């Protein structure tokens, strides 16, 4: 029982990364209709950003936690203005290809500079111990990651449901044309929302640095799982993406812990895609998605 709870907790921590990445992807897709393939590379840049700031400037994890997402938000804004914006009038495939190409470039640039081996990043000293959760002890850093992710997801949810900006973003996501006809300049929200989504990926990257291997391809595998998460949750559904992110995280860890020994890795890896296939056949719009409206 204790072991089960511990594994579940691990799953939630692992799901935190999926949820944060899926959240950014969903916010971006909702408003821009752009599938940002570069999201995984930005997550990787987030982790490397933390590493470089520590290695070259001696900045702490806490400084990186603020500076890296902000810096990447600026990168996102520039990217949107310089490239993505120009392609939005064309088939969405163009932006998918653009961000795919960008991913390859970013990965290769980082590879050329830092190599393919993992770069070490220490757990911040304040969080290096463990926390007594009653039934079991748990690494403090992991508790922090989970708490931080939940707080951010709840914060974004509150922003979307409790503020006028959130209402406008929801409206523009659901019915862009009608929303313009109601006097709202939908285009004005596109760049900031893209920057925000990118910042979330960067933040996930910083959070990952102390507990996952920091290397150029760390985002490449993860992002494919995140795509599955977003599709299962329903493209553009914020709630669906976050909830499914945590659930997939838990299911993967359970599979690794409890599936028959020789099948573990295979089941854990293919599970998100099996679920995606089943959900797509059963509900093409995803668990929490809606059919498109004008």
């Amino acid at each position, binding site marked *: 029982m204790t072991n089960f709870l511990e594994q579940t907790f691990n799953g939630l921590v692992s799901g935190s990364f999926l949820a944060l990445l899926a959240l950014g992807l969903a916010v971006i897709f909702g408003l821009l209709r752009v599938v940002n393939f570069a999201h995984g590379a930005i997550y990787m840049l987030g982790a490397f950003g933390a590493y470089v700031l520590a290695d070259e400037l001696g900045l702490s994890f806490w400084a990186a936690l603020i500076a890296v997402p902000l810096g990447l938000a600026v990168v996102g804004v520039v990217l949107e203005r310089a490239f993505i914006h120009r392609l939005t009038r064309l088939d969405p495939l163009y932006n998918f290809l653009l961000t795919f190409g960008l991913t390859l470039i970013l990965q290769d640039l980082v590879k050329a500079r830092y190599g393919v081996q993992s770069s070490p990043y220490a757990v911040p000293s304040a969080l290096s111990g463990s926390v007594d959760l009653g039934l079991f002890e748990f690494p403090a850093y992991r508790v922090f990651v989970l708490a931080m992710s939940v707080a951010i997801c709840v914060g974004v949810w509150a922003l979307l449901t409790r503020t006028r900006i959130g*209402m406008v973003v929801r*409206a523009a996501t*659901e*019915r862009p044309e009608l929303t313009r006809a*109601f*006097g*709202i300049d939908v285009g004005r929200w596109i760049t900031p929302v893209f920057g925000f989504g990118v910042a979330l990926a960067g933040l996930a990257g910083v959070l990952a640095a102390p507990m996952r291997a920091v290397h150029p391809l760390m985002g490449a595998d993860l992002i494919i799982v995140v795509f599955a998460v977003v599709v299962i949750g329903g493209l553009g559904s914020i709630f669906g993406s976050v909830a499914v992110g945590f659930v997939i995280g838990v299911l993967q860890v359970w599979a690794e812990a409890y599936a028959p020994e020789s099948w573990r890795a295979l089941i854990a890896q293919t599970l998100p895609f099996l679920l995606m296939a089943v959900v797509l056949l059963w509900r093409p719009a995803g668990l929490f998605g*809606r059919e498109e409206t004008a």
Partner: protein
Amino acid sequence: MLRIDGLNAWYGEAQVLRDVALEVASGEVVTLCGRNGAGKTTLLRSVMGLHTQQRGAISLRGTDLTKKPAHSRARLGLGWVQDDRGSYATLTVTENLTLPPRVGPRSWSLDRIYEMFPNLYERRSSPATKLSGGEQQMLALARVLRMGAELLLCDEPTEGLSPLLVQRVGEILRLVKADGGTVLLVEQNLHFATTVADRHHLLAEGRVVESLDNTEVRNRERELLAYLGI
């Protein structure tokens, strides 16, 4: 108030509006009728700035609209009631009402809206798509009232409504008119049209082929209904 001149519109190669000229004076309620596919919705969408494959002159109170994006046109006083009612599933009834900015002095307060539409008040915190079709239509009308738009562009607001609700839409439109508002109404129900409007335009194959007043419509109702295929 609204002046349209030489308006042509296309979908790809197919031309759906041909040299449409139309005027709506301040305080007037004018209908646009025509068979399915005649181009009524395209005309309203062109005025709203949502249909871009179009050419011609459109002005509101003398302000040229042709270069303005849809959101600026809304802020100049155009209120859009979309043919599918345009309810947001992700917004509550109250949010649906307060989403558009208030653009004119005639803007209704939320209290007045809810007094007029007690059903909406009862469902104010529900997602708008949980409302019945009739309630969603009331919501779409209430939304442009709350906006305080000077010129309402209503696309078949009575379509699919029960006779009782059609009457209700009539009351609302008459109230708008009494309040000094202006309406361009797409309407297939000719009898209803004569109870709310001052003038009527018949659109056929993208052209305005006839303009009639209420007496003419009443006298020729049978012929016109046969023409509209209703």
